[in-house]
């Protein structure tokens, strides 16, 4: 019996080792969103540019759109900004969620760096962000024609992310729409 006790450390390590081995094939940076495949959450908030305009989910128009969470305190958002302008220019509607920011800073930002967004929701308390499961800014969501969140992308949307992740998904959504129309 006493001899068996001496094997305990060995067994403990073997279990640990199995986990470490499995860990090698996991990517700690990949963050799935619980909301992928779920409908876009409801909200009722003001916009950044028009202080008296209340917007809700039904104001997010388009067959598909990007929802970009941004803030003036976020360095990555500044890097991302020119890419977003390019994407908007290519005809993809982008809505902004100005996350935990001050109205003054946010309007200043949109004035000085140009505005890629159809409009930006002013989410000062982070309510919408909370419902979206936002960890930080920037994050970008792809929402399809049925109002379902198809992808949550955490990090800077640069040319690479656009080409590899977002563009293929948008093309797929376009195909789905075309299919549904013909059938």
């Amino acid at each position, binding site marked *: 019996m*006493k*001899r068996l006790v*001496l*094997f305990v*450390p*060995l067994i403990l*390590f*073997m279990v*640990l*080792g199995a*986990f*470490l*081995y*499995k*860990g*090698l*094939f*996991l990517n*700690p*940076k*990949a*963050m*799935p969103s619980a909301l992928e495949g779920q409908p876009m959450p409801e909200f009722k908030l003001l916009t950044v540019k028009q202080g008296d305009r209340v917007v809700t989910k039904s104001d997010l128009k388009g067959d598909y759109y990007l929802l970009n969470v941004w803030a003036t*305190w976020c*360095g990555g958002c500044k890097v991302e900004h020119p890419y977003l302008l390019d994407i908007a220019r290519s005809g993809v509607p982008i809505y902004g969620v100005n996350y935990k920011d001050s109205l003054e800073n946010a309007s*200043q930002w949109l004035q000085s760096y140009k505005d890629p967004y159809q409009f930006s929701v002013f989410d000062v308390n982070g309510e919408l962000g909370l419902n979206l499961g936002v960890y930080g800014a920037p994050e970008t969501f792809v929402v399809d024609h049925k109002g379902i969140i198809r992808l949550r992308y955490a990090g800077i949307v640069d040319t690479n992310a656009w080409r590899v992740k977002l563009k293929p998904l948008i093309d797929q959504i376009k195909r789905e729409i075309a299919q549904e129309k013909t059938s």
Partner: protein
Amino acid sequence: MIPELGSFALMVGLAFAICLSIIPLVGVSTNNLTLVRYAKPLTFGMFLFTIISYLMLTVSFVSDDFSVLYVAQNSNSHLPVQYKFAAVFGGHEGSLLLWVLMLTTWASALALSSRNIDEAFVGRVLAILGMIVVGFMLFTLLTSNPFERLLPNVPLEGRDLNPLLQDIGLIVHPPMLYLGWSGFSVAFAFAIAALLCGRMDAAWARWTRPWTLAAWSFLSIGIVLGSWWAYYELGWGGWWFWDPVENASFMPWIIGTALIHALSVTEQRGAFRNWTVLLAITAFSLSLLGTFLVRSGVINSVHSFASDPSRGMFILLLLGIAVIGSLTLFAFRASALSGTSKFELYSKETFILAGNIALVVATATVLLGTLYPLLVDALNMGKISVGPPYYNAVFNPIVALMVVMMGIAPVIRWKKNKAGTFRSELGLVALASIVFGLAFPLLYGGEFIGWVAVGMGLAFWLIVATLKNAKTNITLPQGGFDIKRPTLSYWGMVVSHMGIAVAVIGATMVSHYETQLDIRMDVNSTVELSGYEFAFEGMKDVEGPNFSAKQGQFRVFEDGKEIAFLRPERRIYRVQTMGMTEAGIDSTMSRDLFVALGDPLDNGAWAVRVYVKPYINLLWLAGALVAFGGFMCIADRRYRAKKTSDETQSAATTDAVAATA
């Protein structure tokens, strides 16, 4: 030519290491002393060629040889020369080479100073160290050779060293940390050799303990330097973040602390033998685990730059071989070594054992917190991260318990303590500590904070109990004092324990009484924080050797008198175009004034973060005390080679010596 020489030297070193891991063991099993005696020259050979290899890499850096891939990735011709030396271990490949260098340094130090240890035993120990070196050298040569060339397209410039690492703290921090980590492999080798030959007596503990103490002291310095660096370089104002990589360095340290105490029991009383061996194996395993976590990228951390499954696989293989091999050996051989030493419940042994268990539990909680995200992910239960609230909740109570025991353990006797001594010697101290703890937050801050009371009370308890015990020990029976009466290792214990008390004070004060402001500052505006007035006088452009910076000019006034001029910077490193903050800090023993720049705002205003951190410098002082105490123990006369001692000293006589000591 130089890089090829380096690569070649490493291969020759590997050949020496392979011979070292085989020949002495063959000699031991065939009773051939000539073969056993090869161990030392082989160790020196291994060391010599490793250091040649390391020097070759250093030369490649200093001479800006960008045809070497590793140099091109981690250096630049404009990099100041002291950072070129540091850049040698600024990346994955070089840090591995440094690991190997440190390991071979320990091995040759052991070979040099082991004249009073049984020859066959030293042969075994060196052979085991040789095996570890083989593992790491193979890892270096097969998966991460720093000498790989970029031919024929040699870049004209290097990509420069990561700006975070361009700092004095980072020149010293990794070598200290690696000295500590690799030093635990010496304790490990001693433990395995003991299991192999079934010999684990007081003499064994006396040979092992100074090496463990040395590794532990270096690791203490390494950890504190890392913390100091994070404090002033990252600009977040914190000093410990429970980051996985910090934990990776901290876990071997906690287990090492348990180990040096268990070793002292084994040395003086012959007890806890299996336990000591298990701790030695664990300390080394955690060092390897740390290397795995840092280098494989399985865990998200500010430190994990390299993320390469093949490398992770190799370290996991090394870890597996080392740990499974040694734990199997332990399972089969351990009980043969179990001691018969008896002690009563109320004795020094009990308290050291209890302290040991607390340390092991502390390690387990840190390990669980570090690996929990990985476990949950591996079980497909989602992605989570474990933050400071978890660690504070589980770690602080354990530390509190530890400190209570640290006050008692030095006072009570080995084997069996007389009833009532505790009350007569420490009763008053305990009462005073409680009163002091309760009063302190009210007197200092004007309001009662529970953790401050606990922290200050415990620190008071530890300091007074330790000093009281020291006073008893230097009091001569005939009256008067003699500082030389207790051994040097006793004084080492006193200094290290004082270090812990100082750390408790520093951590308590800075966690509860620091003040902070995150504000917008216009030029020529002032803010007031904790009685200090910070005046922002504007920005200056500064050019460094490989960066440009905006430097803020802040004058600090106390009672209308200027006491400091702080110059925090926002740097842009030209090659990596990476922004870095350099905090402006003014230090005195009782407080740090800390200013870091955020982002520029309109009209020349800046977002600024201002801290007043009381007694944070006690933390660095504490690290120095703890490590210094460790070195004092090593210098104790009983660990020094005795010229008169016979080379084949028998276990029985050393046991007798230890028993009388």
